[in-house]
Structures are given as structure tokens and as C-alpha cells.
């Protein structure tokens, strides 16, 4: 398969995951789009280096997270953790009422705000947990042991639940 086709396939299968990572790491919508684009570019740039030793989704995750971390480091300015809820920018499924759409939009914003308050590594781990990656895959991306990942996940879940509840 040539790179162009592989790229299109990889993006089609993983674009939502990638976008969620962007949401977890960047609150500003314009900056988020830039980050998304930068991840796409880095994926394309590195496509030749994918050797098939890991799942392509895990590999994509690593690129997305590395790019996001670089993005955070580059932006020295302190970003606001509170963003205005704009239902138009949330591509949530059509619901019966506008109120419900706003409610879901608001909950999603709140979730990303809370995730954004976590430590960098914790943000990475929880985004993978929420995307149903296995402990083994998470360990592969983070370079931790599977046991360590398990311990961390339990702690992060509690912290996130607490943040969401507060």
C-alpha cells in the first residue's frame, strides 16, 4: 500500500481519537485545530518509519501525544482552563432538543476541563483508558510496566471522578 492510501486509512480509523487527544491537551479551539493539523503532518512525516512492531493505533497515539506535549511546551503562555461552551464546535450526535445538546456539550467541555487539570502523563493515560486501549497498549505507549499502568489508572480514575464531581 502506498503512503497516501495508508495515511488516508490510518486517519479515517483514528481521527476521532486524535481529536480527543487534542481536546485533552488544548482548550483553545483555534490552537486545537492547529495541533490536530500538526499531528496529521507528523503522522505523515513518520509514516515510513512505522515498522509494524506495534499496533498502528498505538503508534499513532505516541505521535499524537508527543506532538501534543511539544505543543504544550512551546506555548509558554498560561492557558485558561475554562472555555466557553460553544455547541457548534462540539460535534455531538443530533439530539431531540437544543437544551439536551447544550447539556451534553457542557458535560463534554467539563470533562475536557477536568482532564486538562491532570498531570501531563495522567492526561495521556486517561485519554487512552477512555479510548479503551488495553493496559498492554498503554504500557507500550508510555514505556511503563503493565502493573505500574494499572496502579496509575486506578489513581487517575479516582482523581478524575473527584474533579468531575466537584
Amino acid at each position, binding site marked *: 500500500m502506498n*503512503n*497516501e492510501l495508508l*495515511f488516508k486509512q490510518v486517519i479515517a480509523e483514528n*481521527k*476521532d481519537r*486524535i*481529536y*480527543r487527544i487534542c*481536546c485533552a491537551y488544548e482548550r483553545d479551539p483555534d490552537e486545537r*485545530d492547529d495541533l*490536530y*493539523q*500538526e499531528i*496529521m*503532518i*507528523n503522522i*505523515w*512525516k*513518520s509514516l*515510513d*518509519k512505522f515498522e509494524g512492531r506495534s499496533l498502528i493505533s498505538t503508534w499513532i497515539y*505516541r*505521535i499524537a501525544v*508527543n*506532538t501534543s*506535549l*511539544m*505543543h504544550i511546551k*512551546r506555548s509558554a503562555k498560561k492557558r485558561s482552563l475554562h472555555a466557553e461552551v460553544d455547541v457548534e*464546535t*462540539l*460535534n*455531538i*450526535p443530533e439530539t431531540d432538543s437544543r437544551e439536551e445538546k447544550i447539556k*451534553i456539550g457542557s*458535560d*463534554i467541555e467539563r*470533562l*475536557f476541563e477536568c482532564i486538562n487539570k491532570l498531570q501531563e502523563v495522567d492526561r495521556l493515560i486517561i*485519554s487512552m*483508558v*477512555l*479510548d*479503551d486501549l488495553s493496559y498492554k497498549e498503554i504500557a507500550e505507549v508510555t514505556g511503563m510496566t503493565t502493573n505500574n499502568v494499572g496502579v496509575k489508572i486506578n489513581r487517575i*480514575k479516582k482523581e*478524575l*471522578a473527584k474533579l*468531575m*464531581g466537584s
Partner: protein
Amino acid sequence: MEIEEIKNLWKEQKTRDIEIKSTQYYTSLLDGLKKNEKKVKRNYIIMSIVMLFTIFFIDKVAVESMTDKTMLTWAGFWMIYLAIAAIIYVSWATVIKFDVKGLTESSLEFLKTAREKLRLRNRLRTIGIPVYTALLTIGITFVYIQVTAPMELIYKVITYTLFYLFIASITVFSYKREKKKYLNEVKPIEDKLDTLLNEH
């Protein structure tokens, strides 16, 4: 809120229809850049081998076979060595690396580096190669002064004329070829890089 609820909420967030203006542009750019760099590297490898072999040949055959070398002859040899070493070094300095660093390096930085390397390569073509040719010509002329010393004037004139004609024709031929290659292959990549950099 339970983790399963959070998970469902998390998955509600789908990709917006972000207009990735540059992706298509970038993919064709990167494809072109990678192909071009592959060719450039292959050419540089061949060039380096030929040049190193030339140095080896000059050192083992020309230098050793010439007796009573004058200061001018030595200056000629060193000029040739210097010109060859410099051109090998500068040529390899223009190679764009697609290494693992690219995974974490920002794409903007990568684009800037790639643009700078291409600019350097262009300067190598327009300034470096003529300087290299001039150094080589002067170096060889210095050596020829000793080599042709015992010759009659007419043979000296013929030798120098043929040598300079040879150098001139090679220079013109390679300059035209490199310019054509630049306009057809490198210039479009440079234009795309400039567009992407302007977008940033």
C-alpha cells in the same frame, strides 16, 4: 460520575470537520521532498566515493610520482584537496534528515530546517560549485606549471587550452543540468514550503 459514564461522554466527542488546508499540500510536498532527498543522497554518495578516490589517486600516484615538487605544486595539491573536502562537507550539510527526531520536532521547525537546507543547496549550486571549480582549476594549473615545465611552448598552450576547455564545458554542462533539475524538481518543493511557512 462513574468511569463508564465518563467514557461515554468522552466518546461523544467526534472530530469536527476541520479543514486541514495543508495536509494534501503537505503530503505531496513530503512525498516530493523524500523522493528528491533519496536521489540527492544517492548522488552525494557516488560523488563522495569518486572524490575520495580522486584524492587517493592524486596522493598515491600524482604526488608520489612527481619529484622535486615546488611550493607552487604543493599549493596546487592542497588547493585540490581543500576544494574536494569542502565540497563534500558542504554538500552533505544540505541533506534533509527524516530521522526519529522528526517525531517530536514540531512540524514548523522541520519545515524551517528543510527550507534552510534547500536554500543552502541553492547557494551551493550558484556560489559553491563555481568557487569549487575555480579552486580546482587554480590548483591543477599550479600542478601543471611543474608538469608542463619541460614542454615546448606550443604543447604547453595546447595542454592548457584543452584543460580549460574541458573544465569550461563540464562547468557549463553541469550548471545547465543542475539549473534544469532545480527548476523542475526543487523549485516546486521550495514554493510549497514557502506557502506552508506563510500559513504558519
